[in-house]
């Protein structure tokens, strides 16, 4: 089965489930994706009536992690009289994971949510395609026969689908939203139970072979062009602080310039704050205007918490995230000890 037929099937399912949810009055609103105004990007859409269900789409351009709209809840999701509205969320694996992780951080009440799950087949690495196309204007993008076709005024190019997937999608192990026994009525559509996820983290261990100097150079060179626009933060479903440390000015902890030190510090602390929380959706990389891929840093975080605390974010709302808990006996090999 080609990617295009698979997408069509997913899309039809989303529409069917959404329609049912409205018919059975189980949700007030549904948030999903619609065809974007730009060719290389689908857009989020919030629908509140049956007729609009037809606007929902699924394709490999749906980068946005929709969980972002729920914490904090955007005004549209709150009614003056009824309070929090019941929201159906069109969920690929990482959106489901984000919702569940947010629930484990007590930011979200899953009872007000319906996870419209399906098994995701990945999103395209938009940055890479744009880089390959260069200055030319893209007018149409579609996936057919496992190829990504990009059309413009006087060119038509195709890229192998597997290779041009978002880096995090290539290693994704949670294609459908995770579910536990207690969540069975939160999830409609295709969800899956993951008891634990095995991952070899080869990509990370390759990097670990480098010397400190090489690592510094590598990370520095890949982040050098960061303009500190904070789009990565804005797109991330886990970044919901009222006041981000970079915006804080009492005290001013870190510089706000694009000096190497400031950039590195921003990304180091962003990573620190994502430990055990990043759900690997790749939204941050998809939105970066200068094409920085935060993939490796996010993978490293996943690897650390998996190795140290046997934790994978967003699988079970009952399990406390590692940075919210502690244990008496724990490996502390990094501590300074007498010889």
């Amino acid at each position, binding site marked *: 089965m080609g990617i295009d037929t698979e997408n069509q099937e997913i899309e039809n399912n989303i529409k069917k489930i959404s329609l049912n949810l409205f018919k059975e009055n189980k949700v007030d609103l549904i948030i999903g994706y619609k065809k974007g105004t730009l060719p290389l990007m689908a857009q989020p859409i919030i629908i509140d009536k049956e007729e609009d269900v037809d606007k929902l789409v699924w394709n490999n351009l749906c980068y946005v992690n929709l969980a972002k709209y729920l914490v904090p809840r955007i005004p549209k999701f709150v009614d003056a009289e009824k309070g929090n509205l019941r929201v159906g969320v069109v969920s690929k694996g990482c959106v489901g994971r984000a919702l569940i992780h947010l629930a484990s951080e007590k930011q979200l009440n899953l009872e007000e949510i319906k996870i419209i799950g399906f098994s995701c087949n990945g999103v395209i690495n938009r940055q890479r395609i744009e880089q390959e196309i260069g200055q030319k204007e893209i007018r149409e993008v579609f996936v057919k026969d496992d190829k990504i076709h990009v059309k413009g005024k006087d060119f038509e190019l195709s890229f192998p689908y597997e290779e041009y997937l978002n880096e995090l999608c290539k290693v994704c192990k949670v294609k459908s939203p995770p579910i536990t026994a207690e969540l069975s009525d939160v999830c409609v559509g295709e969800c899956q139970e993951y008891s634990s996820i095995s991952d070899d983290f080869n990509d990370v261990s390759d990097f670990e072979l480098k010397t400190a100097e090489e690592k510094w150079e590598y*990370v520095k060179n890949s982040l050098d062009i960061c303009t500190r626009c904070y789009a990565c933060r804005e797109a991330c479903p886990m970044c919901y602080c009222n006041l981000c440390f970079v915006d804080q000015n009492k005290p001013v902890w*870190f510089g706000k310039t694009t000096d190497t030190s400031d950039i590195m*510090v921003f990304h180091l*602390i962003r990573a*620190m704050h994502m*430990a*055990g929380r990043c759900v690997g959706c790749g939204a941050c990389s998809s939105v970066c205007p200068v094409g920085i891929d935060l993939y490796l840093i996010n993978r490293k975080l996943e690897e650390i918490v998996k190795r140290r605390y046997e934790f994978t974010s967003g699988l079970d709302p009952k399990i406390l995230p590692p940075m919210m808990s*502690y244990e008496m006996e724990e490996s502390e090999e*990094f501590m*300074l000890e007498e010889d």
Partner: protein
Amino acid sequence: MTVQTEESKSSNEDWKPKIIAFLCNWCSYAGADLAGVSRIQYPPSIRIVRVPCSGRVNPYFIIKSLTDGWDGVLISGCHPGDCHYLTGNLVARRRFAILNELLQFFGIEPGRVNFMWASAAEGERFAMLVRKATSIVKKLGPNNKFEKKW
């Protein structure tokens, strides 16, 4: 804040690293005190900041120290189980574990930022570990990575 230039710093054989040390009030600071009153020798490389608990040590303190040009950072708290606030050091340990790995991922040499436990009765151990931390940082040379030059 440094008068020496980068070159003179690193080429200087008897260059002495400057290490900022965050010591918890109840154990490590008292341990340092004990080392002092017992006249145990340790290098004068550390400058101590007293904090209520190792759990008070925000990762920002550590990173900020590096951007401010300290050559090393040392954080010391009570042994697990001895925390005055019961679990402050356990919370801190997780934070440090992750910060430590991330620092190394970003290319900070292992040993520039050190973590240790020392109780109020361990003046000897405190001095010994400060000696060790100093020699590690001395080997690594001046911190020139995160330091903000202007």
